[in-house]
Each structure stands twice: as C-alpha cells, then as structure tokens.
C-alpha cells in the first residue's frame, strides 16, 4: 500500500512529463489498492467476456471458464458502457498558484487525465471542458480510445488563464447534455461561490450527477507565511501588505467560512464535494468518483 501511495504522490507525478503515463500510474496505483473495495458490480445481462484487469471485481470473474482455460475472464454486461462523464477543469490564473510543490492547475490536469484514463478504461464515454472566464477547450464525451489521446493532448496543452467564471462553462455544458451524465468539476471555486452553487444545483436538477473537486494549495489552507510581505492577487493584481502571522487566524477563519459554505451548499444540493489538498495523493479523488459512479449506475 505504501508503494502505491508513493506513486500517487503529486510531487512525484509532477515529474512525469508524459500525461498518459502519469494517468496510468495514478489509476494503476489506485486500483492496486481497490481489491477489497466494498463496491459491488453493475447490472444486467451478460454480453461478452473481456480480459481481467486489475481492479475488476473478482465476483465478475467467470470461474468456470477459469477452470477450463486457467485464465481470468470478466463477464461484461449490456449497459455497462452507457455512462457519460464530462470533466470541467478550471484553468484560471488562481489555479496556477503553487507554494512550492505541484500547482493547483497541474494537480487538476493530473486529476483530469487520471479520471479520463480511468473512465475510458471502464469503457465509459468521457469529455473535457477547460475554462477560465471563457471556455478554452471543449471535447464532447466519447468512449473510443483515440478520444482519450485527444483529451490527454488537450490537457497537456493547458496554460493558466486570467479571471475565473465557473458559471459560464457549466451553463453551456448544461445546454449540451442530452443524456444523464456525470459532471466532474475541478476548480478552486475562487469566484462568486453563490453563483457557482446555483449553477451546480441547476445541473443536478437536470438529473446529472455532479462531483466538485475543490483544489486548494496547502499554503492556501494553512497560510504558513511568516515574513511581512506584499501579497498580490494573481487574478486582479491587487496587493495587500501585512504580517501573515498576525492575521493568520483571521485568514483561516475567513477561509473556513468560505469552504464550509461551499461544502454545505453542495451537500444540501446533492452535489458531491471533495476538498483536495495539492499536497495529498490523488486516490481520494478517484475514490470519490468511483463511489459516485457506483451509486449512480
């Protein structure tokens, strides 16, 4: 377990330039720890066999066939590939912040690529939207293997934008979604949180499952600064000179009010909420997604 955790360490992943490789490491590492997962299989009628992959539920192994061929085959069912997932990634300027390790944007890219790889591996359709105050890239959900490469290529080309406007891409997305989908929002939510919540509530009301990953840097969460400094806002270039130690408590109080609001509003709206610290491994995010997928389908 410890080895797999090491592979999921964001700082190690950041050293891998190949995004596909990075996604594979994340997913394989994550799945290696999922054998005892309490999640049960999917539904319905048997359709075909496929080779066993690590992470597959052992209950779906055809033991009779194993007895005859001495190989693991997983029984596939009719509706298993009908899940559609859209990953919405915030690429605004605030996402470029890093206190020394991996930036929030890089963390989000890694998470998005891992999710795309994982979803595609599950033979689900996956799409991608990147945005700051405008939509920068939109790839509709598909389940073919070349589509994964396009998604990964798009993610690898992501650059920090300017201001944040989460509402706009979500509104556009809602207009394009014709089937029940899973919307994965990866953002720091440093925007008008009330508008974001309302938009998410709308998506949820349309029957979609929504998972919100709020990505925050460890320095944002703990404010470990000591030296008196001039803090400059990365999105609007406003500045504020202060001695951090003096106002640390005040900062953290204000931040917690914000995070608590986001969490509480998401929960009351049926939106899954997961606060991610860029200093922590990605398995927490993947677990959240799997949990949501299992509950939904």
């Amino acid at each position, binding site marked *: 377990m410890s080895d797999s955790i090491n592979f999921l360490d964001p700082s190690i992943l950041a050293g891998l330039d190949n995004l596909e490789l990075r996604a594979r490491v994340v997913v394989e590492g994550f799945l290696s720890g999922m054998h005892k997962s309490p999640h049960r299989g999917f539904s319905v009628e048997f359709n075909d066999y496929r080779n066993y992959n690590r992470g597959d539920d052992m209950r779906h192994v055809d033991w009779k066939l194993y007895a005859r061929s001495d190989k693991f085959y997983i029984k596939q069912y009719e509706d298993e590939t009908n899940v559609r997932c859209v990953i919405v990634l915030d690429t605004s300027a*605030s*996402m470029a*912040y890093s206190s020394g390790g991996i930036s*929030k944007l890089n963390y989000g890219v890694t998470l998005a690529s891992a999710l795309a790889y994982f979803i595609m591996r599950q033979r689900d359709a996956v799409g991608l939207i990147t945005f700051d105050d405008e939509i920068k890239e939109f790839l509709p959900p598909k389940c073919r293997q070349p589509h994964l490469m396009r998604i990964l290529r798009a993610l690898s080309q992501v650059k920090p934008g300017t201001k944040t406007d989460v509402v706009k891409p979500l509104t556009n997305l809602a207009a394009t979604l014709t089937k029940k989908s899973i919307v994965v929002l990866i953002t*720091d939510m*440093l925007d008008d949180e009330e508008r974001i919540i309302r938009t998410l509530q709308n998506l949820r009301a349309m029957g979609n499952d929504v998972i919100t990953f709020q990505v925050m*840097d460890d320095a*944002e969460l703990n404010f470990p*600064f*000591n*030296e*008196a*400094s*001039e*803090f*400059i*806002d*990365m*999105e609007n270039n*406003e*500045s*504020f*000179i*202060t*001695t*951090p*130690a*003096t*106002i640390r408590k*005040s*900062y953290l109080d*204000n*931040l917690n009010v*914000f995070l608590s609001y986001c969490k509480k509003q998401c929960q009351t709206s049926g939106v899954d909420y997961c606060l991610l610290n860029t200093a922590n491994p990605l398995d927490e995010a993947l677990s959240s997604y799997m949990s949501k997928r299992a509950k939904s389908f």
Partner: protein
Amino acid sequence: MVFISPLFLLGLMAALLPIAIHLIRKEKPPKLMFSTIRFLKKTSKKLILFQHIQQWLLLLLRSVVIALLVMAFARPLIDQTMARLLDADPQSAVILLDISMSMRYGDTFDRAKQEALDILRTMTSGDEVALIGFSDSAEFVRELNTDIDSVRSVIADLEEPGYGATRYMPNLRLADQLLEESRYDNRVVYLISDFQDSGLQDLDEGWKLAPGVAFNGIDVATEESSNLVLTDVRSPEQLLEDAAEQLILARVRSTGTLYLNQGEVTLSIDGVMVDRAPVNLADRSEEVISFSANFDTQGTHVGEVRVNGDNFDDDNSFFFTVDVLPKIRVLLVNGEASENWFDDEGHWFGLAVSSAAQSPFELSSIEPAELSAAVLRRNDVAVLLNVGDLSTAQAEAVGEYVNNGGSLLLAPGDRVNPDIFNRQFAEIAPATIGSQGQLGIDDYLVIADFDRRHPILRPLDSDWLARFQGHWSLSAHAESDVLMQFDNTEPALLEREVGNGKVILFASSLDLEWNNLALQGLFLPFVHETLRHLVQSEKKQGSYDIGESFSLDPTGEGQSVQAMTPSGDDIVFANDDFVVTATEPGLISVNVDQVDYRYAVNILPEESDFTRAAVATLYDSIINPDTDITQSREVRTTQLIEELERPQRMWWWILISVMLLILAEAVVANRTYR
C-alpha cells in the same frame, strides 16, 4: 550606577540596529504572488492595529535585549558599592616636583609637569594627594586633600621653575611628615626630578621613609646636555678712590653630559662690555680667565661676567658690585707730641693709618691749641690722643661736632686730668674717668673679653696678647656699650652714640708708655676698623646667592625703601626690615631714602652640574626595610573590583533578564510572524 568597564557602553549604539533594520526593511517588503487576497482583505482594522503594536513591541524588546547585554559587559555596580571600592584601598600620595634651576634645561620641566598630571590621572575620587614644589627647600606646599582637580590646576598653571639648588632630603622628610597625617595606609611618594647628583650631597644614610611609604622616582632628565658655567668669579667688593687697576678672575667649566671645549667669556662694567676672552677647554677641565678693570669714580659699580657658547642661558652670567669709597678724613689731635717717637701717640697712630700704600685715610695732625669747630668740620673723625688741656670752647666745639654727626676717638693718657676730662666731656664721653691704674713692673692686664659681634671686633676675633701696665679706671655711662674688658673686669673700650655721632673711648694710651698694643699685629686693623666704624656704617654685603635672605636697607634705618627685582618688577615687602629672599639672578636695584644701592644675586654653580644620580641610589637609601614591595595600583584595583563585584553578581541578574526578554521576544515574535 557606575560601570567598571564603561567603554563597553559604546555598544549601546547597537541597540539602534533593530530599529535601523526595521526602517530599512520597511521600505522593501517582499512581493508574494497569491491565489487570492479576498480572505486577507477581510481582516479587521483592529487586528491590523494590534499587528503594528506587536511589531513595535518586538522592536523595543530587541533593543532592550541588546542594551542590557551591553550593560552586562560594562559590569555595572551600584553607587554604594563603588564607594566601598574606592574606600577600600584609596591612596595618599605626595608629589614632589623639582622646580630647581636645572629643570629649566630644554623641555625638562614640561615633561615633569606631564608626569605629574599623568600620576593624577591614575587617581580616583577618594584619593588624597599633596604637592610640593621644591628646590633646596619647599617652594610651595599643598597639603593632603582629595581635591585632585585643584592640584591638577596648580600644576598646569606652573610656568617655569625657579633658580634654586636641588636638595632631596629635606623635601623627602617634609613629604614623609605630610604622610604622617594621611588618612589611608596606602601611601606613596612620587619624586619627579632630573636627579642631579648634587642634590644627593646631603644624603642621610640613617634616615628612611616611614614603614609602608612607597617611593616612586620619575627621572625626567634630558639624556644629552651641554653647558658652560662660571663656577666662580673673584672681584673686589670695595675700593677707595684712585685705586689701582683691579684683577677680576672667572673660572669656567663644562658641566653637561656632552663636553664643550670652546666658548667665550665677556666682562661688562655698568652695562658696557669692557673685555672678552676665549675659552679653550680642549686640554683641561677648567679654565681661569683674567680680566683687568678700573673703577675710577666714586660710587657703586655693577659688573657682569658672561660665558657664551652653550644652549643653557640661565647660568651664564655672574653679577657683582664694587663700591668705590672716598678716603676718610682723620683729624689727629696729639696731646703729647714728643720728639721721642717712642712715647708719641701720634707716631704710632700715624703709622697705623698711613702705612698702607692705598690707605683709606687722609690724616691731618694738629696741636690741641689748633683745635676749632672749623677744623673739626673739615674732617670725618677726630682722634684725641692724650689731650688734657682743651679750653672750654674747644670742648664745646667737640661736643657740637659729635652731636652734628662727627665721630670721636678718645685715648686718654697720662696728660689727662680726670676731673677736667669728666667735666668737659660729660655729655659725650662713654664713661667717666676714675683713678689711674698703675701696676707693678711685672704685673699687667690683658684683654679678657670683647664683643665679638661688634663691627670693630668681629674681624678681630683673635687672641689679644697686648699687655696693659697702665690704664684709666672707667665708669661706663648707662647708654654706653662696653666693647672690651680687661681681665680685672674694668672696661677697656666703650662706645656711646651722641646725637648723630659716635664716641669711642679707649681706657689706655695708644703709645708704648702704658701698653704694648702698638706693637701687636692687631693694632693696625684695630685702628682701621675703629676709624671705619666711626665714620661709615657697617659695610653691607653686596652679593648674594639664590636662596639667601637679606635686608635691602643697608642703613637699617631706612624710612622709604623702593626696590626692583632683576627682571624689573617692583618688590613688595612683607616685613618692616625690608628683608627679601634672592630668587632670581641679576641685580636688585634699591632706593633707600633717595640713596641708590645695588645688590648682585647669582645662581649656585652646583646647580649647573648636570651629572645625574641613579634613581635606585636614592631609592635604596630612603626606602624603609619594613616597607613591603607594593603591588601596582592597577593590580590592586583589579583585585578589589573582582572581590567586591563577586557578591553582587549584578551581571547575572542582567543576563537572566536578557534571557527572559529573549523568551518574551520569542513569544511575541511567534505570535507576530508564525
């Protein structure tokens, strides 16, 4: 609060460092890109104000920490402790500062003053110090007291040394006596001098400083000195008119550490240089220079012998005075002029006053019948030898003559009638004549006693071998002085002052009829001194050495005396006798009742001898064997400071305070910056 190492207090400036750093850094806060400042901007203004207060508190704490550390290094003591420290081993010191003439050489005296000031600089409040400026004796004394600043100002105000000789022992004794009154056991004598060997001439091997009195000799002599000095000058003091050419001798010697063998000596009379002569000491240690000089006119002449060729000017001159006197006019009234010179008083008296080639007397001889007031007025002194037949008018003329200032010498012989004599000279004679004392052939009287202090007899302090077989028994008047006595206690010589004149009465004749005095060697000086005494006041000394005290009034009766020092300053007399002490070489000008006098004052040649003595020689001679080898004051002070500081441990408390402040600073800083 006092500090043992106050120089460390300069480090207090380091307390400004935190403020300086704060001010420097305040201008350049580092910029930090952050995702959003929305949560920072919500900070309350009260919190920001508190933040500022904390920053200033931190600044204050850091400055105080530095200041306290500096104070700890400066080793503070409270006042009472320092007082104890000072009282614990204060010092009683006597500074003996040589101000003799030899200290005038080069910058010797300036260095001596600096040494004295340096000694005072090492003293602290509580010490007591005395100051003695000395030469052959103490010129000034400032007794022990704790006002060190006033002693310092006295030393600083000293302009130049005097001209006195150097004598160490009397002044060391004085210093020792001063220390007997000292308040402290830590006693020391500082002797600042050029340590002339001549100053140790009176070294008393038996005398020592008191036990416990330390001695510190500080030698400020110039290593190399060169000097020519007149060790002696011989000149006549008194001359008579028409005296022959006089010889003046000057003795020259090189006395510095560097030998000078060339120079020049000049002679000046009354301010005019009359002669000069070179000095050549190449093959001798001393040379005698001879000058010839004429003193023609009557009065007092001043002379100066000066040697040139060295770089010490103060001892180059020798001054002298020469009095040229008029001859004394002597009227001899011979009462027994005889063809037999053996019995002729006038013969023997004439021999005495006229035998010398340069007789100071101008003798005129008359018969008693020729005596008159007019004749008397033409002479300074009248001598009546065995005159027994004067008329009453003549006797009255004599009395008037004496009362008006004339002088009279009476030597009655066998021709004198006592009754007539006593009647005629009752008012002026020192005694009345009684019977004539005639002794046997083998019997005689001798002079048994005489007044050795009298001007006539002072130079005749010898054995009087004259034998007196005849004499007059005299009864002295109350106002008369008996100057000589025979061995039968009868007066032999008497003096009486009458009016403005003097009368001397000799109890015997001046021929060989009654005595053999005229055959004695003392006869001539006796006659000379008697006549001189009758006419002149006592010859006053005209030349003195530095340090001698004398009266500037040669008459002893001056009413108005004005005098000037050799440097031209008026002399203010502190006594009625017009006595002064010679302190400066040169000529003192005096006016006594409109009569001018001059006195020569010369330095002591021994003071010009720069031969040095080792300080150790003096130290070994005067240090008391019971005196411990004293530690230096610095060592003692250091030990005392440590001893008295130890129980205080004040710096411990300061350091503990610093530690607590550092902890407080850490807490505040932690709250402020972490």
